[in-house]
């Protein structure tokens, strides 16, 4: 019962933040509603027993990535979005398309919901401490991908510096 109430509260906050991102015209408002979505999502991760992912979600996404976004919005002095007079193909085809996609996924989930069993809080407790178990997996089974991501980040840092550097 408590689990359901918490899920509904955080899920509604998530959806409200995402809808607000869609309807706000100023990018800074969209960025702040995205921070709300990410915070609520990290609480949902806690409900699913993923403590490590919840902490990383706050630190990396809501902390680092969104600060970068807000920083760029301030740097470029981005104003409110102008109404475009271009083609409205995206609106007339994309809107119904996305609505159909959502309806299809929700219908499939409801139709096949009997195949999934229920989620309980802290379901993965038999692995022991969640962070400990994730670290074991990350540094043993996924060691090579982990090392490759460090090279990826190095290349991304160099690319960002080269692209954002002022010419001359």
């Amino acid at each position: 019962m408590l689990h359901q109430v918490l899920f509904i509260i955080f899920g509604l906050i998530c959806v409200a933040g995402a809808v607000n991102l869609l309807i706000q015209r100023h990018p800074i408002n969209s960025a702040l509603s995205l921070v709300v979505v990410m915070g609520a999502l990290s609480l949902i991760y806690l409900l699913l027993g993923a403590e490590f992912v919840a902490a990383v979600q706050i630190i990396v996404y809501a902390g680092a990535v969104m600060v970068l976004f807000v920083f760029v919005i301030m740097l470029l002095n981005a104003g409110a979005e102008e109404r475009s007079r271009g083609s409205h193909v995206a609106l007339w085809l994309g809107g119904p398309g996305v609505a159909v996609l959502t309806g299809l996924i929700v219908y499939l989930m409801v139709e096949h919901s009997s195949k999934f069993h229920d989620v309980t809080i802290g379901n993965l407790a038999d692995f022991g401490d969640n962070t400990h178990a994730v670290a074991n997996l990350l540094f043993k089974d996924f060691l090579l991908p982990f090392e490759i991501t460090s090279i990826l980040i190095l290349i991304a840092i160099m690319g960002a510096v080269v692209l954002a550097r002022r010419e001359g």
Partner: protein
Amino acid sequence: MVPLSWYLILSAILFCLGVSAFLLKRNIITIFMAIELMLNGVNLSFVAFANHWHQLSGQVFVFFVMVVAAAEAAVGLAIIIAVFRTRETLNVDQVNLLKL
């Protein structure tokens, strides 16, 4: 006790809101934020299935998605700054040199 399908439906709703923001917004930074929203929706379904199958590799995958998203944000925002320097606009309708 919450059915797993609730989590998957929430994830689908977040993803589809991200897709519609991607299609409808005209500011390049907001479009980029819509991509982050889609990645978050997919992450939620990864964690939900990790819980369902009792496999922690789903959570490790979320970690990798976050790393790639952070790298993508750094490079993408640098590209946005470069575009703004040359075109002096953030409106994607005015960045149309490749259009006939």
